[in-house]
């Protein structure tokens, strides 16, 4: 009975709760129906009417925004198809992020083939096309930033110089943008950029117009020019669908994942990973190397490389090998790349080697560090038993994951923050213990000193006492004065001696 009552209690309360929910959501006083979105028949009919009206307006608006996004290099006739593929991709997003990625990729290449077709269709629309496309282009924040900076810099230069530079850079930027949009081969695009750098820097050094500029300004102009022309067509130049960069990226990532057992020691670098400071620099280096992919200009990418390598150098220095030499440095870079498994590394490196001003990569600190990074990646790609100085069988066993190195566990454990903290605390505790021991020792020493002092004091007192013993001598008998005739006689004697004796004179 009681059980039944208890169990019926929640049921009833739930039912009551439902009852209040049964009312129409519009609060018109009638009952609603879940099938009509909780509305009563009257209210639902009105709701439907409204929805229909808005739906007839919406699709149009939706199409407009979508086309804006996708017509970057699109000729007007193919707008319809691009919106279609866009909707297809949005349907697919529900499936998985990978499907979305694939469809996007497809869509990208579809779009390109469309434009190629339209170009073959007639020469006239080709010329008109970029003019149409450019105004509708969505300008990303990165582009705006670069353009703003460049413009600000140009304003500091004399007018004729600024306008000449702007004109030339604009021309080549547009050329690169148009060519890259129509599937020109990547080598040709590289050549366009390379020729531009060569001609432009030649012009800067030889043309009389620029005679007043010093070394620093010309370098700056070159850097800005590079950033500007590349960022305008970054999407087409970075990991373009005409190349197999993307496959290579995936391949490298897989390879690095397989090589997770490789330690710094195996590569020939001494990295003291138990040192928290060293650990911190490794983390910073890893962050820097991963950040390369988020930057959109060669300059920013190279800055990440430099920062990463500086952290590596510092890390090596802290590991206690003195100033790091290249014998240590390159292995450490390889190790950091393996630990970081940076996204789209191949694409990034290729983007830089293809389109950066070649002068930058051959000299200077950035050039040196970038070369090291290229070497590291090249080494990782071709890593085999010989390059790790181990037997083929052993290498295969490691690669297949059948054996794992014992230090791997330690490393991974060290990757965990909690464990790292624990290690740090243990270290601190150890230090405290040592200090405590030192303190104890000192206290003991101090105590001994005190005891010694006390003993020596006692000894001295003893000696003193022995040397100068306290002898209590018997009391001497004091003369006893008696009063009487004898006394008088002496008094007289004194008086006699005091008084001048007349008799003598």
């Amino acid at each position, binding site marked *: 009975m009681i059980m039944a009552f208890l169990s019926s209690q929640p049921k009833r309360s739930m039912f009551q709760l439902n009852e209040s929910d049964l009312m129409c959501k519009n609060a018109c006083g009638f009952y609603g129906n879940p099938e009509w979105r909780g509305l009563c028949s009257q209210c639902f009919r009105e709701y439907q009417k409204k929805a229909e009206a808005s739906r007839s307006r919406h699709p149009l608006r939706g199409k407009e925004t979508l086309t804006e996004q996708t017509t970057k290099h699109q000729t007007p006739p193919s707008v319809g198809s691009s919106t279609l593929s866009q909707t297809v991709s949005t349907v697919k997003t529900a499936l998985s992020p990978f499907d979305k990625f694939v469809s996007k990729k497809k869509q990208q290449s579809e779009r390109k083939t469309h434009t190629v077709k339209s170009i073959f269709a007639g020469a006239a629309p080709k010329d008109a096309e970029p003019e149409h496309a450019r105004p509708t282009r969505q300008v990303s924040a990165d582009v705006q930033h670069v353009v703003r900076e460049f413009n600000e810099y140009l304003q500091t230069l004399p007018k004729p110089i600024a306008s000449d530079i702007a004109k030339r850079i604009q021309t080549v930027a547009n050329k690169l943008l148009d060519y890259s949009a129509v599937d020109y081969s990547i080598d040709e695009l590289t050549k366009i950029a390379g020729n531009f750098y060569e001609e432009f820097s030649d012009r800067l050094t030889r043309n009389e117009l620029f005679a007043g500029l010093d070394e620093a300004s010309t370098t700056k102009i070159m850097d800005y020019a590079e950033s500007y022309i590349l960022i305008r067509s970054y999407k087409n130049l970075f990991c373009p669908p005409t190349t197999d960069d993307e496959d290579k990226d995936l391949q490298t990532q897989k390879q690095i994942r397989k090589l997770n057992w490789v330690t710094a020691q195996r590569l020939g670098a001494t990295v003291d990973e138990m040192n928290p400071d060293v650990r911190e620099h490794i983390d910073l280096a890893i962050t820097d190397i991963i950040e390369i992919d988020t930057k959109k200009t060669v300059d920013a990418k190279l800055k990440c490389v430099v920062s990463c390598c500086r952290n590596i150098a510092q890390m090596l220095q802290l590991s206690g090998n003195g100033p790091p030499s290249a014998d240590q440095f390159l292995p450490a870079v390889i190790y950091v790349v393996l630990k970081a498994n940076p996204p789209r590394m191949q694409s990034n490196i290729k983007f830089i080697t293809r389109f950066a001003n*070649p002068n930058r990569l051959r000299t200077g600190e950035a050039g040196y560090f970038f070369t090291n990074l290229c070497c590291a990646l090249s080494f990782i790609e071709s890593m085999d038993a010989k390059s790790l100085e181990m037997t083929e069988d052993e290498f295969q066993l490691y690669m297949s994951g059948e054996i794992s190195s014992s230090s791997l566990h330690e490393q991974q454990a060290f990757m965990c923050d909690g464990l790292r903290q624990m290690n740090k605390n243990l270290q601190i505790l150890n230090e405290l213990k040592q200090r405590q021991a030192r303190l104890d020792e000192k206290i003991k020493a101090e105590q001994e000193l005190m005891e010694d002092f006390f003993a020596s004091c006692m000894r001295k007192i003893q000696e003193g006492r022995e040397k100068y013993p306290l002898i209590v001598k018997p009391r001497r008998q004091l003369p006893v004065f008696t009063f009487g005739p004898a006394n008088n006689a002496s008094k007289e004697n004194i008086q006699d001696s005091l008084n001048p004796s007349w008799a003598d004179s």
Partner: protein
Amino acid sequence: MERNTGGGGARPQSAGQGVGPSSGAPSQMFQFKLVLLGEAAVGKSSLVLRFVKGHYYEHQESTIGAAFLTQSVTVDNAIVKFEIWDTAGQERYHSLAPMYYRGAQASIIVYDITNPESFERAKTWVRELQRQASPNIVIALAGNKADLENQRKVEYEEGAKYADENGLIFLETSAKSSQNVTDVFSEVARKLPKSHSPADTRRNADAIQMNAAGQEENKKKCC
């Protein structure tokens, strides 16, 4: 493009900027890329540190690293600024070396006089550079650790003879006692072309071509 690097384009600059003795008179400044080759642990980095910082490795060293450093020397009233690229000497990294010496105008190949193997390695480096590097590259051979005379395994004459046959600069150095350290760099600086006459523009062209070839190689190698 090549102004400050490729062919050593001249930039008037006051001599005070260089580390070498300032003559007071305005001298020209040239910049060259110098690559250090040699087996691991022959003392490449110590040599550079001695040259750049003027002292042998000490524990309180606070530099960022010896892998990439720059230093200038003054020869014949011109300042020569070296951009020194150190390389990893281990055998397994040997195949990556072309990426470093690409576009280098000078190279110092270091071996250890107490280690005959390192001398053999140095010889292979010489052959490789003569075959693959820029044709005008100035090569110096340095027998390091000359302070360890009692452990010497490679005779002075041996090194000198080899260098002579191959047209190399040869000096025995000691990073520890700083014997001949600056000299080896000065010798290289003296031998590097320091004119920007027609010959220079040709060198410029070389440098650009070389770079194009280098890019090709880079694509094959690392990407």
